[in-house]
C-alpha cells in the first residue's frame, strides 16, 4: 500500500532537472510493477518460504508439541515413497482428461470461432455459463447423474455395456470424466481466442496451393492455433493435476490423487512437514513437465 502512495508523490513534483526526469521515466515501469510485486511478495513468496521451511521440520513434531526446524530433507524421499502411487495417478488422470478435453474442445472452439456466425456469442456464453455455479455443486450433480440407480447406469446395464452390478460412480472413469468436465472451459477459451484470429483467406491460399482440407488444417490452422493449444493445455493441466474434489466426490480412496493426500496431511492427519513436502514435490513435477512441454511445443513446426 505504501508503494501505491509512492507513485503519485514522486511524479507530482513539477520542476525537476532534465536528467532527473529521464531517470524517473526509466524508473516508471518498475514503479508500476510495485503494487503487483508487493502483493506477490506478501501472498505468494512469503507463504512459499514458510511452506518450504515446514517441509524441513522434524517429522516427529506435532501441532500440540510444536515443530522444530531440523533440516529434515528425509521428509521428501519418505513422502515420495509412501505416496508415489497417488502422485502418478494425478498425472495419469489429468493426462487422460487433457486428451479427452482436447478432442472435444478443439472442434468446439473451432466451430465457435469459424463457423458459428451470429451464434458465436451465445455459444461462448454457453461455454462459460456453468462457471456461474459453484464447482462443488456441479461435481455433486455429476454424482447424481452417475449414481447406481440413475438412468445412465440403468441404460448402460440394459444394453449390457455394464454388467448387472457394474457402476460408474466411484470408478477412475468417473474421476477422469469429472476432471474433463470441470476444466474444459479453461482449455476452450484460449483455443477459441487463437482460432478466432485465424484469417480464412490463409485457408483459401492453402487450398489454392494444392492443400486438401486435411493438409490445410495440419499445415495452417493447427500451427497458427498452437499458442492457444499451449495456453489452454497449461490452464487445464495444472489445476487438474492438483485437484482433489473430483477424486473425493466421484471416486474412492482407490482413486485418490495427490491433492487428496495433501488435503488430509494438512487437515486430517495434521502432518505439516509431510503435506508441505508433497506440495513441493507436486510443484516441482508440474514445473518440470511444463518446462519440457514448452521446449517441445515452442519449436516452430510442431508437426
Amino acid at each position, binding site marked *: 500500500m505504501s508503494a501505491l502512495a509512492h507513485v503519485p508523490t514522486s511524479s507530482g513534483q513539477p520542476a525537476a532537472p532534465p536528467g532527473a526526469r529521464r531517470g524517473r521515466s526509466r524508473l516508471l515501469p518498475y514503479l508500476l510493477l510495485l503494487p503487483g510485486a508487493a502483493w506477490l511478495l506478501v501472498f505468494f513468496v512469503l507463504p512459499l518460504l514458510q511452506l518450504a521451511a515446514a517441509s524441513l521440520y522434524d517429522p516427529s513434531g506435532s501441532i500440540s508439541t510444536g515443530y522444530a526446524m531440523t533440516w529434515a530433507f528425509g521428509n521428501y524421499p519418505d513422502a515420495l515413497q509412501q505416496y508415489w502411487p497417488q502422485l502418478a495417478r494425478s498425472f495419469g488422470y489429468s493426462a487422460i482428461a487433457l486428451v479427452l478435453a482436447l478432442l472435444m474442445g478443439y472442434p468446439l472452439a473451432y466451430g465457435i470461432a469459424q463457423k458459428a456466425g451470429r451464434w458465436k456469442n451465445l455459444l461462448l456464453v454457453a461455454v462459460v455459463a456453468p462457471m456461474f455455479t459453484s464447482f462443488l455443486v456441479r461435481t455433486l450433480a455429476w454424482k447424481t447423474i452417475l449414481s447406481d440407480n440413475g438412468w445412465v447406469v440403468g441404460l448402460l446395464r440394459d444394453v449390457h455395456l455394464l454388467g448387472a452390478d457394474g457402476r460408474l460412480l466411484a470408478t477412475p472413469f468417473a474421476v477422469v470424466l469429472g476432471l474433463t468436465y470441470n476444466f474444459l472451459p479453461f482449455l476452450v477459451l484460449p483455443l477459441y481466442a487463437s482460432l478466432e484470429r485465424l484469417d480464412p*483467406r490463409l485457408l*483459401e*491460399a492453402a487450398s*489454392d496451393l*494444392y492443400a*486438401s482440407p486435411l493438409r490445410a488444417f495440419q499445415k495452417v490452422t493447427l500451427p*497458427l492455433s498452437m499458442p492457444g493449444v499451449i495456453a489452454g493445455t497449461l490452464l487445464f493441466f495444472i489445476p487438474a493435476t492438483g485437484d482433489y474434489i473430483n477424486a473425493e466426490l466421484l471416486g474412492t480412496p482407490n482413486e485418490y490423487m495427490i491433492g487428496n493426500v495433501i488435503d488430509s496431511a494438512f487437515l486430517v492427519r495434521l502432518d505439516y512437514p509431510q503435506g508441505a513436502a508433497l506440495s513441493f514435490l507436486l510443484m516441482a513435477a508440474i514445473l518440470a513437465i511444463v518446462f519440457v512441454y514448452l521446449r517441445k511445443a515452442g519449436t516452430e513446426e510442431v508437426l
Partner: protein
Amino acid sequence: MGHETPAGDLRLANLTKRFGVFTAVDDLSLTIPQGSFFALLGASGCGKTTTLRMIAGLEEPTSGQVLLGDRDIAGLRPYKRPVNTVFQSYALFPHLDIHENVAFGLRRRGIRKVTDQVERMLSLVQLEGYGRRKPAQLSGGQQQRVALARALINHPQVLLLDEPLGALDLKLRRQMQIELKRIQTEVGITFVHVTHDQEEAMTMADTVAVMNAGRIEQLGAPADLYEYPATAFVANFLGQSNLLAGEAAGHSGDDVLVTAHGARFSVPAGRARADHGSVFLGVRPEKLHLVAGPDQVPAGHQHLGGVVSDASYVGVSTQYLVRTPWGSELSAFAANSGVGGRLPVGTPVTAHWDPRHAFLLPRAAGEDDQTSPLLDEPPVGALS
C-alpha cells in the same frame, strides 16, 4: 496434379455471381487462349476479384461454367485445379518463413527437393537471402513479391494475378513486368492479370478486357481498344477522350454525318459504333491539334473554334483545355517538339482533327459533352 490434364483455352461461359440481390459478375462469357496474357481492367468493385475467385474455385458461381480445354472445372475443389492465384491481400502464411511460403505448393504436391527451385524463384523476384525471414519482417512490396513467387513457382496452367504489382515503386514494377512477361512467354502459362494500371495492361497484355459493373464492356487487342473504343465508358477509362454530344444525320458516301452544337462533322462509317439517333463524336486529346485560325487547318481536317482556358506543362508535352463557344471544354495535348510556341491562356484557337482518327459512339439521350480533367501525369499513349 494439373500437369497431366489436357492443355487448353480457359473459357468462361455465362458466368454469373450474385451476392443476395447484388450481381457482382453478370453473365460473363469470354475465351482466353492457352498461353496468352489477358488483362482485366475496371473500376474498383466492378467484379474483377470475384471473377478470378470463381476461376480459382474459391467462389461458387451462381450459374455458368468455367472450362479449361474441354473440361468443366467449375465442380472441382480449388486444390484440384491447375490454377494458382497471386492474392490481392497477399495471404502469406505468417507462421512459415519466406522459403517455406514459396515452397508450399511444391511440397503439397509431394516434391521433396525444393531448395534450388525456391532459391531461383526468390532471386527472380529479387529477394535472395530473405528465405529465413518471416512475412511480418518484410515490407509491403517485398511481401507482394513473395506472393508472386509462391504462385509462379508451381507453373500452373493458368495463373491468376490480382493486382500483383500494386505495392511496388515504378522502377521495380517495370522490372517485374518484364520478368512476368518473360516467364509467361517462356513457360507458356495463361496469365489472367487484374490491374488498375492501364499502361501495365496495354504494354503487357495480348488481350485487354474492360469490365464495368460485372460485365465486359469491350475486349480486344490493346491498340484496338484504345484507337476504337466501343463505349463511352471504355473511351474514358482507357486513356482520355473528348466526347461531343451530337445527333447522327444520315450517310454521305462512306461517311456518317453528325451535327453537334450547330456544326456538321463526319466520321468514316468504319469508325462508327452508331449511325442514328444520339451519338458521341470522340477524339483523343493527342489527336486534337491547335492552330491560330481556320485558315491554317490542313485539307480534309475538321475543326471547331474556342479559347485556351488552361495550359499545363508536363515536360514531354503541354496539355491544353479549350473552352468551346457552348461552354464545354476539350482537352488537347501538344508534343513539346520545339516546333511552335506555347499558347497562353486566353488565346483564341482552332482545334482540328483528321476524321479518320475520330469515332462515333452511342449516347443515351440527355448525356452532355464529356472531357477528362487534366492529369498531372500524361495518360497512356500520349507519349508512345
